[in-house]
């Protein structure tokens, strides 16, 4: 659970990170095993990764791909609390993580 782990994974999965994006790691113990993996902040400049994101290589790639989609969404259309918009954004983020994970597997 270090910045280096993240950098390595971003490189291996060929993910594209905006230059001004900051990725933080929240190591708090009470979130372990709570199946919370990531969070994109409403300003689109920060992503926080939680302990469960580091359980496996797959989870980390999927989480990074997922949150990067949210970063793009927030930067282009702003944050939202509308459940319908959230569900639509979530569908896109889930499709993207699926795509990135399969691409990664194909390249291995």
């Amino acid at each position: 659970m270090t910045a280096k782990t993240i950098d390595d994974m971003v490189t291996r999965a060929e993910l594209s990170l905006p230059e001004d994006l900051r990725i933080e790691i929240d190591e708090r113990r009470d979130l372990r095993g709570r199946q919370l993996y990531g969070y994109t902040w409403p300003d689109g400049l920060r992503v926080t990764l939680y302990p469960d994101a580091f359980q496996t290589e797959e989870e980390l790639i999927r989480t990074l791909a997922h949150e990067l989609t949210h970063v793009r969404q927030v930067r282009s259309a702003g944050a939202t609390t509308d459940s319908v918009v959230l569900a639509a954004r979530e569908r896109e983020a889930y499709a993207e993580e699926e795509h990135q994970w399969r691409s990664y597997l194909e390249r291995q």
Partner: protein
Amino acid sequence: MTADESHEAWLAVFAAVTAAPADARRAACPNCGHFAVRFQYVADATSKVGFCALWCENCGHGHTLARTKVPDGIDFLPLETSEEDLRAAIPSFWDATAETSLADDLKERLEDATARATSWHEVYKRLRELVPEGDEQRHRALIWAFAYDLISPDETDRLAREGSVFGAMFEFAEGRMPPRLAEVPDEDVAVWMAAFEAVPALAVRSRIGDLLWSRKAQPAAHRKAREACEALIDLSRLEAWDALEQTEGLVRALNLSRELNDEALMRKVAERVVEVVEKELGREDRPGISFRLLRALVGLPQTLRPKQLMELVRRSAATYGKDPHHLESAIELEAVLTSSPDDRRALRVRQAELWRDKASEAEGILRVSFLEKALDVARTHGLADLARDLRVEVQGLTEEDLDLKTISTEVEIDREEIERFHAAFVQFDSWQTSLAAFGAYGPPGGDIAAIERQVAEQMKNHPLQYLIRTVVIDPDFGVPVFHAVDDDSHKLAAMAQSQWMASQFWAVSAVAILERFVAHYGRPSREHLTEFFTSTLVDTITAERIALAFELWWDDRSDESAHVLVPRLETSIRNAAREVGLPIIREPYGGKPGGVRPLGELLHQLRGRFASPGWHAYLLHLLVDPLGLNLRNVVAHGVRARIERTDAALLLHAATFLRLVEVQKTDGPA
């Protein structure tokens, strides 16, 4: 307001409530502290990856977390769930961490503008000064919020027009500022929402809370209305806050509590209103404040009215009663509060007598106005005897009593042009063609739709003169016949005035043309004129009388001419009504004898049947409209000592026009 409504605070709530076995009651809302948190996962049906929404049912605040996976044993909604079901499962909520939070610079400026402000208007002015040039668009929602004019409950027309209690500060031909509340874009409502949560100043909570409630902006619009109501009460205690805005605010608070149907809040506001009125009754210089507040209390349901309300109303009469308008206000309120019909009647008699006394001290049009007010009270409240006496008093006033002043204006018209116009009527070879041309000219004033457009334009360009109550005085009796008090009645009076001016202008030409006619062709014989006037609508006997009317006019006996002519005009119009299939007689009914229908009724029934609506409107104006020349009634009721040459010329012109009218049958109604 939030103690710690951060992402971390909501994370702690998430961790607590989703821990197996999941229990939403396990954590308090980080904003309000209530144990009313709910959560809902929405996720991919297979992988269960998605987001978790958390919100508080008490305060409407919340937060969302993604990427998460739904723990085993917890229900979730698939990502493909329909919009309707998603919205039903997850209400709108306020996320303090989301980008919709108020930007720091906006927050700072709003705090600066509200600090030590003494009115909402002052907040508006300060905000405008604080906004950096070029950044107006980002600040417009805040500026609008404080620019709104809180509409009083008495301004029912304006309330209906605006669709809310918030009215425009400015209205121009091209637009208004601010926009109607319902037309404020959602993005600006989001700024209000953020401002309400970010700045706890009373000016913000009272105004923006009410705007959000009135706009029904979710989430938690009810909570905002309550907080606005409480803020309005607190503002009424702020020494520095503008007294008028305090009063308007309390009236609004009372209405807000009624809109919320919250009796406890209603009582709380009412208590504060009573405190303010008690204090105000100690001074005589601001009756408006006391009466506005008392009126609001009287408007409450009977069970919620403060016990001391009647006493307060009576004290207001004692404090401000030297002015009849204030005394009347107090009487009006007491009449609503009293439960005894006898007491109510006695109060209304007192109210009418108040204006009668005032009239006896006044002179001129003011005297008429007071007497009319007394008559209005007597009539409205069924005081028949008093109304009769007052009516006699009003009728007894002479034109001299009114002490009216003449306002005149001059318009220069080229003499040659007038000459050419008059000469055009006698340019024909035969007198018959000349007289037919005379009858064909018109309608004076032109097309009625054009008059309407012209009046509407005039009202739009010069709105001030139409805001003032206008009294139309009958020229023969000198008594008021019409009061223009609102847009519709002002329009009616203005149209009548426009038609009146046009017909007076035409009357001068009509006289000149008829004189020139004789000079040019000589007088046709009675026999020839009779023959000329006999037509579809004019039988020979009637035509002979019309011919006589012409002769009388040329003999300078205009009064006799009009008296001979008016019944014959009525005959011709009745013939027209019969020809187009309208009933012209009334059958006997019960004990009442039948008879012919009056001319006014016939002319109104003929609306839409004339090829030219302008001519129909002109005939109404000329013959039967009490706001118009009304010559049929003036002649038939003998209200004018002598009919002048100009008026008689207009009647001759109308007779000549009616001679030209032909009835055309169509497939439908004639």
